[in-house]
């Protein structure tokens, strides 16, 4: 397959997109010791060349707008274009972050409303929109837990409990907060091992981080007991909102006993994933953690919206970004919430769950093995391709790569690690029944190929821009920047 040359190979000395080049200003007042001696390697191409190059590159991407994208735990639902339009208006885009509140009431009203909505859907007492992604929300959450314990003189708690199947960000965040992550076992039915939890908790326990539905894609049925056990030991409960789509409008994390949580607005609130961000990871807390919320927060004073900072929230853990997080993403999430309303939100979990259970059932009928066959699917479910792997010598990754040839993005593979050769499949509520049926058909065909011609899988993909890429070579012979002599 033809490769797209890099933009640097298209570059020619003294070519430029003339309409974009402003007139140069004088630098005569800058002493030469501060100036650059040689020009940087930047493209010299025409506007059309740049447009064609990046348009062609875009064709080499799978995306929600092109493909079914059942990537488990990532909630690849439709990203409504209206939200993009709403956030792209000049009044929002051209607002400098240091503009005074008196002339920023439109933006602040949007943020205030979003705080209110997120407080309600999570069943918590207050929200800060400051974190710029889920992982930063986790960090903010654990910093609040830490601040809470310290404020009570409870200094010795240095352990955060996470399930063995937790998202990698959970233990990584615990480390970033100076905590030790201890792992708790998950039982054969996908629920946490309660006895193990009872053994683990104690005076060292700062808290526990959980997703519910769990990363095993089932609802953690003992959540109320777990909350009791952890709280009795003096710890707090952190809810990783990655899977909130499963319960939006059904139950609230606040009512399950959680003290603090983050939401991934780029999941549940349909803001675009952008090929790896930007996200937004607001945190919601109950009363005991309100004093520690990250700043700024939008509040109301004398009928005007205001930023609340250190003065109003003196025990805050602080700011998390230079300004106020990813405001543009927050406006998109508000636009989405407005179009859904409470009636629309009530249906998100219903249809996400309907789609997942239907797809799980159809795959099981087609002979695929569910990882937790006795359990109901949530907004997602796990299948294990262990038997296919043993029988035909093909791995889950081979199934994944072959799916690309059917123009379907692969589900999440090999996560969670405790289920061998697994696919974590999340169809989301915005997919049609026809699309789900096509997925089942593709999976059946691939399994038939595994039996008769396994190379169709092990050498897949066959019809994409590239065949399978050599990741070992990429890591061993590091080639991270283009150089004029590297081709």
């Amino acid at each position: 397959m033809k490769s797209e040359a890099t933009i640097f190979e298209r570059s020619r000395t003294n070519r430029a997109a003339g309409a974009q080049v402003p007139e140069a200003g004088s630098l005569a007042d800058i002493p030469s010791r501060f100036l650059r001696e040689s020009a940087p390697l930047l493209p010299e191409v025409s506007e059309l060349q740049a447009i064609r190059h990046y348009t062609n590159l875009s064709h080499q991407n799978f995306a929600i707008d092109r493909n079914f994208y059942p990537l488990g735990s990532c909630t690849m639902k439709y990203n409504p274009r209206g939200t993009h339009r709403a956030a792209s208006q000049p009044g929002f885009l051209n607002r400098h972050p240091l503009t005074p509140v008196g002339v920023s009431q439109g933006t602040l009203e949007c943020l205030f409303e979003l705080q209110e909505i997120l407080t309600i859907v999570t069943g918590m007492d207050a929200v800060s929109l400051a974190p710029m992604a889920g992982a930063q929300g986790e960090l903010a959450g654990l910093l609040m837990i830490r601040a809470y314990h310290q404020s009570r003189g409870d200094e010795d708690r240095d352990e955060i409990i996470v399930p063995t199947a937790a998202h990698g960000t959970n233990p990584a965040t615990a480390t970033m907060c100076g905590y030790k992550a201890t792992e708790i076992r998950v039982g054969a039915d996908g629920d946490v091992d309660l006895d193990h939890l009872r053994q683990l908790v104690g005076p060292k326990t700062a808290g526990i981080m959980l997703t519910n539905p769990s990363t095993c894609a089932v609802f953690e049925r003992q959540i109320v007991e777990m909350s009791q056990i952890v709280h009795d030991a003096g710890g707090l409960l952190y809810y990783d909102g990655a899977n909130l789509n499963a319960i939006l409008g059904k139950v609230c994390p606040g009512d399950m006993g959680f003290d603090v949580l983050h939401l991934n607005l780029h999941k549940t609130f349909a803001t675009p994933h952008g090929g790896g961000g930007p996200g937004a990871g607001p945190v919601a807390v109950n009363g005991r953690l309100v004093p520690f919320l990250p700043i700024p927060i939008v509040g109301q004073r004398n009928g005007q919206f205001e930023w609340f900072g250190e003065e109003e929230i003196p025990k805050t853990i602080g700011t998390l970004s230079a300004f106020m997080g990813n405001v543009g993403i927050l406006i998109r999430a508000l636009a989405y919430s407005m179009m859904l309303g409470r009636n629309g939100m009530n249906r998100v979990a219903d249809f996400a769950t309907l789609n997942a259970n239907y797809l799980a059932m159809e795959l099981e009928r087609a002979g695929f093995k569910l990882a937790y066959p006795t359990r109901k699917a949530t907004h997602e479910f796990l299948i294990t391709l262990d038997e296919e792997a043993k029988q035909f010598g093909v791995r889950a990754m081979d199934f994944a790569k072959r799916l690309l040839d059917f123009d379907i993005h692969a589900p999440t593979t090999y996560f969670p690690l405790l289920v061998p050769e697994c696919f974590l499949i999340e169809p989301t509520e915005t997919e049609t029944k026809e699309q789900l049926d096509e997925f089942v058909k593709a999976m059946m065909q691939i399994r038939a190929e595994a039996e008769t011609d396994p190379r169709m899988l092990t050498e897949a993909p066959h019809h994409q821009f590239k065949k399978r890429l050599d990741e070992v070579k990429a890591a061993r012979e590091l080639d991270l920047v283009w150089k004029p002599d590297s081709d």
Partner: protein
Amino acid sequence: MPFIPHTRADVSEMLASIGVSHVEELFSEIPESIERADLFAIPLGISEMEMLRVLSNRARQDELGPCFIGAGCYDHHIPAAVWDLASRGEFLTPYTPYQAEASQGTLQLLYEFQTMMSSLTGMDVANASVYDGGSGLAEAILMAIRCNRNTKSKRVVICGAVNPFYLRAARTLVGSQGVELVHCEHVGGRHAVGLDDFGEVAAVVVQQPNFFGLLENVDEITDWAASKKALLIAVVNPMTLAVLKPPGDWGEGGADICCGDGQPLGVPMSSGGPSFGFLCTRIKYVRQMPGRIVGRTTDSGGSTGYTLTLQAREQHIRRAKATSNICTNQGLLVTAATIYLSIIGLTGLSNVASASHANTRYVVDKLCASGLVSPTFDGSYFHECAINLHRDAQGVFDELTTKHKILAGFPLGEAFDGLESSLLVCATEKRSQEELDFFCRTLLEVLN
């Protein structure tokens, strides 16, 4: 039902297939003891048209006249093509490019981005972004401590005029890892080398141009850091590097880590976010760098292709021992920045830098010629400048905002004691001659 495609017939068939009679039964594993959600306080859903009506009104409410504030966020021209392309669904709606064969577009673009950023900063390698300038500084500090094998010290010296907003965020982000941030006082707006003895130091952070727009003696500071066996972290505005000496060339040996915010490269101000942070470093430290990194490789047919690499550093593999918890970063803004740099090109970026500087200098010279205003600090500045109004700058700023809808600059008293009469002004290449003159005239009128 917004965005849900199911017909009634679909629902019946699907329920029948599952073997339940109502969707509610699918939630039977949620214990009865947990109260059901009550969203009643949230209004009912509205159409796209109605939503846009409400939000357009709010957006219009916040429209203002010309912006003369910089302070870490800049009002540059963005070529129309940048966001036309970045808003294509193929860039807007994919996930992180884990499935390389289905993500060559984003991956090649990131490789091109890494190349541009490495060259602009004069460093060996760049990552694919962190959240913003503040989180970039935090990650750079943590990374420097991991990289510095000469000392066990977790003390990091911050030069006085590093962006206070970055520093404030970095304090939160590194606060629970035993890091000691020593913030030096600036002397006349700049860092004074050698006045203090800090003992063993893991890293020194300097910003060029610094927060006041002043040019620091980065060669001297870099050599001083090297003599103390500390790593040098450079905080830079990537736009200025089209003309200013890149951190890789500072002093004898160059900076070790370079970070900053990419907003000036084709990203709208958007209230300060989303933008993106960047991190660049020497190749020998690449395994300590957080965030995604793309490598060029070959596919099984021998054709050139791209993939995420060195993933063993990251949280999804390394878990508690990862270099950072970062996962989702700011991919779409990096897409826009890469397209911006390609369209604006070598000459364009250099001219944006020199024209922005010339516009700022024009304003500063004209204001100072009046005798009512003087430069707050002596010496060379670039693109941004602190001016002393000889009266409460906040009051002047407020008057210009409310009466004239001009954002006159950043009143420095908000962040620095003793600078209550100073305003940090910045005029990018986007400011027309009329706007520059209008600004000067109006500011002087208020001062008179």
